[in-house]
């Protein structure tokens, strides 16, 4: 019994048990590195991906709940050679230290910008609250998001 998932615009039949958290399917079945295991409890945001336009914690979202819904990961935004706008802004601001939280940060910010292309600085800060960074890269993350927010739609 498999689950039909739409990941980054493509259909996949996933053999994993329907209770398996999306994170493990992304990382292992799909071999996508972006979403990271941080806490497994939806407390840190390292696993953040976008489902139907909303930022969700993939570590606590069972794949069985995702049939017919569109899952997007950071791999859908661009590549190292051809980064998307947010990715390019994170590179421009060198908005990473260890970087383990960064893919989740970018996906949460992407969800905001798709909903509200020009958030102000306070809206950005509030929106990013669920995601943790331990290296203290917060100011660079905020600056990178604000860069895109001040430009056109993401």
């Amino acid at each position: 019994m498999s689950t039909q998932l739409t990941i980054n615009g493509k259909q996949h039949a996933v053999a994993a048990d329907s209770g398996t958290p999306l994170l493990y399917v992304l990382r292992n079945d799909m071999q996508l590195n972006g979403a990271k295991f941080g806490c497994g409890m939806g407390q840190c945001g390292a696993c953040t991906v976008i489902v139907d336009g909303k930022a969700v914690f993939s570590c606590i979202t069972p794949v069985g709940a995702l049939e017919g819904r569109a899952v997007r990961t950071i791999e859908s935004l661009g590549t190292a050679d051809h980064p998307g706008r947010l990715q390019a802004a994170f590179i421009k601001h060198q908005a990473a230290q260890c970087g383990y939280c960064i893919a989740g940060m970018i996906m949460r910010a992407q969800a905001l910008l798709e909903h509200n292309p020009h958030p102000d600085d306070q809206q950005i800060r509030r929106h990013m609250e669920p995601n943790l960074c331990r290296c203290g890269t917060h100011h660079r993350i905020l600056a990178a998001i604000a860069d895109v927010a001040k430009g056109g739609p993401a």
Partner: protein
Amino acid sequence: MSTVDMGRRAILGHGALLFGFSMLPALAHAQFNAMGLPALADPRLPGSLKNTPFLDAWIQIAPDGRVTVCSGKVELGTGVRTALIQIALEQLALLPADIRFIGGDTALTPNEGYTAGSHTIADSGTALLHASAQVAALLREGAAAQWKTGAGALVLDAGRVVAPDGRRMHYGDAIKGLRMPGLHRTASPSSPLRAPGAYRMIGTSLPRVDIPAKVSGGAAYVQDMRLPGMLHARVVRPPRIGARLAGVDMATVARLPGVRKTVHDGNYLAVLADDEWRAVSAMRALTAAARWEGGTALPQPDAIHATLQALPSEDLVILQRGAMGAGRGPSIRTRYTKQYVMHGSIGPSCAVGHLTGGVLTVWTHTQGVFPLRAALAELVNMPLEKVRCIHAEGSGCYGQNGADDVAADAALLACAVPGVPVRVQLMRDQENLWEPYAPAMVTTVRAELDGSGRIREWAYDVWSGSHNERPGNAGKLVPAGLLARPILPSRSLPMPQPEGGGDRNALPLYDIPNARVVNHFLPVTPLRTSAMRSLGAHLNISAIEGTMDQLAALAHADPVRFRLDHLGSQPRARAVVERAAGMFGWRAGAASLPHRGRGFGFGQYKNLMAFVAIAVDVQFDPDRNTVRILRVACAADCGQIVNPDGVRNQLEGAIIQSASWTLHEQLRYGSDGIASSDWSSYPIMRFSGVPERIDVALIDQPGLPFLGVAEAAQGPMAAALLNALAQATGARRHDLPLLADR
């Protein structure tokens, strides 16, 4: 408690070092220095060339001209990979994309001990600066011999030696012209360095080479490794320190879907499965199937500091100057404390092990592949040369987190399934409950002014458990202590001055004629502890700088002026203090708004590395006991700057991380064991709490030595917050975290 005179001890210590190198086996020797370094080969050589003097250990040139640069230091998320590449390429006229860089591989790189203590650029950077300059000179010499011309007129350009007449030769051909071919030759004490003002690569903000993969889902971490046929493992740790396994039903777990192997060895439990989620599910079943009994009782957190001060201590007088107790001036007497703090890596520790062809390879985000290899070889009872540790990045560690422990898990589990690669990652609660915490600490200070308002006397004591429980022997690794035949940890030792451990930065840098400082090292404390960024400097600089503010008030002096008056002979220290005060707009006696506070903090990391001064402006909310950090102004001098943006990134990060530790963080524990199993029971600063503005000014020192920077701001930021909060609340708080409920 017996007091040991440091003068005699230092001599004995030195003797032990000398004997250690010549007479003790490698495993024992690792205990004698906190950095895990090999013996000195030639003390005249710059940086880590002292320990690894051969040029080809650092820079290799293939016959086709391709260049490989090696460092024993590893990328921990601080950007050192990029900075080391910049340094290595400065003299070699190459771009980062032209070379292969290897950091931390026991089969391929120099042994530079641990990547720790803000040492990387000073040790490895200095080695690479000189090695690359000497290699560049050899390339010119080799080409000159073949062209029968003088080497002086030849230049390096884009991987070629170029003659004035336009002839070009790639580096692989150039070294063939040397009378003694190849680069397997010892480095010289001095190098033909380019003038520091003429550097082209050093001093530029080269974008970090690792960031593009990290923002695009590239394979960037050990967590991202997928080897063919790899199994996923999960461990089950005891619920409490010291708990014993009373019974477990392994058979039920072994029958679960995808489970390939279960491991039960004493109190050590693990499960290996063909899929990661199946491994997690089986781990949960194994947790439920295990019954534990006993465990070590822990003191209550509010009693920890009295507990520490009552424990047996090894007392080291680390400063004795002038005559104490002669004056009768106004004085200050204060006790400062710090609770246990967690490293709190966002990604739980992970490692991959593979035993094949009689060689055990472990991919690990350890801070020291060589010391770890020795510990793992002892753990699995294999010869050193049959174990290889390869560094692969993990989540930021900020000191010793679970990296070494999970590498031990990977080694044990790989040996349980020979030929099959095994990836093991800790769960969040396992990382939190079993990491070696930053020690709880106590300091007391008594300081006295003379009749002219200068400091006459300073008495300071610090009590702390170990800040260095790194391997070491295999017993330093958590899994080793859980086995049916456990390996006990080797004895804990204090880290000697001048770097120090609990007593790091315990010596005030200020001009004080009479002073006595004692480090009460506690070999055994209630919890396992180890290195976390800045070690004792976090609390020591807070205590020193808090006392400076109190003394300034006694002397009716402005705190910044008071500091400058006691830094008479130290121009670099004065310069950062003046710069931070200037940026901030510090004015003597400036009136404060209600619940508003300004605070200042200064320190030179270890009294021998980077100088950092920080001023902060905070708004306190007395009803909610919260603080808004309105502004941070930071000035830093870390010697010659390699990558200015990288230095800023580190300072900004240290400011935010230290603010989180200082205001909020404390491990929760009690009679049931450690309670801080997740981010709700161990909250750290989120976006809503970070400073509204951070300004960083760098003072570059071309031609002066590289000084590390990643750990230099933690103490000054904590001190600035402590002093700002004293003004904002009207009452000094001396116990960290400053915003704890009390």
